[in-house]
């Protein structure tokens, strides 16, 4: 099972970026293998539709779960349609966010935040 986390940096000690579409990196964490990789967020450099570009990237990475701070309406619609579950986290380390998720301490995000929040 793979988790996609919005991140300020490329490793597990980085801080979770509360913005989804405009975060710098995504950490893709594989729970079974306890392994991860980091990818640059394509949404960061897009002029518009950052949340859509970021969502498409995580869908193509076949993640089952996303952990972030907030989702805009467009990203929310895509991710909902892709049957990916989204959990809300504070700006803590990626490592801690994964631990909290494993313990079931993160709340599921069931509605979108306002548009253009991360601009």
């Amino acid at each position, binding site marked *: 099972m793979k988790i996609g986390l919005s991140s300020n940096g490329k490793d597990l000690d980085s801080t979770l970026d509360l913005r989804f579409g405009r975060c710098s990196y995504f950490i893709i964490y594989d729970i079974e293998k306890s392994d991860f990789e980091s990818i640059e967020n394509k*949404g960061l450099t897009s*002029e*518009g539709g*950052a949340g*859509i570009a970021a969502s*498409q990237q995580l*869908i193509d990475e076949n993640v089952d779960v996303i952990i972030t701070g907030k989702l805009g309406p467009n990203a929310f619609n895509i991710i909902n*349609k*892709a049957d990916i579950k989204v959990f809300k986290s504070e700006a803590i380390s990626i490592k801690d966010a994964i631990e909290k998720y494993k313990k079931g301490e993160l709340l599921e995000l069931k509605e979108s935040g306002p548009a253009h929040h991360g601009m």
Partner: protein
Amino acid sequence: MNIAVLSGKGGTGKTTVSTNLALALKSNYVDCDVEEPNGFLFLKPKIDEVEKVLVDYPYIDSNKCISCGSCVNACQFNALAKVNNDIMLFEKLCHSCGACEIACNHGALKYKKRKTGTIEKGKSKDINCARGVLDIGEPMAVPIINKLLDNLLEGLNIIDCPPGTSCNVVNALKYANGAILVTEPTKFGLHDLDMAVEVVKMFNIDYGIIINKDDGKENIIRKYCKENNIKIIGAIPYSKDIAEIYSKGEILYDDLNQKYIFDELAERIKKVIAWS
């Protein structure tokens, strides 16, 4: 001949200058600040022509679409996404570029039209007035601005531009033979004026500055113009009377105590901007 009125900073007086100068010069008034066109609040023209602005957007024929995702890869504006063997469309992000239609090898993608705004035309005090109005919730102003400026009348057009230095302003400047930059003697006014000057320079057209809310002193705007060798067309004084007339939605040019300001500016413009 088309003169663009722009500012960088918002609220410096583009519309005040544009509406009153249009009356002083007996020119056409064109409001292309389509996100908030407020020139008509002052000129109050009788509108006798309303036209819809339509833009293209892709329509996917689900009988022909095999969800290959070629259209998603071709789109540079993130208007399409592929999810669970389905293509999702975000029509407001579409720039109508046509790439998705070309990329689709299955003839599943065609363009349809949808309305994103209107063009309104009318007359006020014997001058022709036109404006574009972007529909609420629509993000893209450029198609409205283009439609408005592609259909300019002959003669002199004063083009009231949007604030800032974004695509919308750059697009309006493409149609201009000269530019008036309206500013105010504040740090914000100066900062954004400097950016607007950089944009106008790219177009190689004559331009000059009008200082609004001017204190008449050797202020930061005058200093900037002197240092950068930029011509000052004139100034509108910092005055309670002017603010009062403006706040009632009235025209300064109709007030006998203010009319001369714009008559003088009109004369000066002809000396700063090559007249044709």
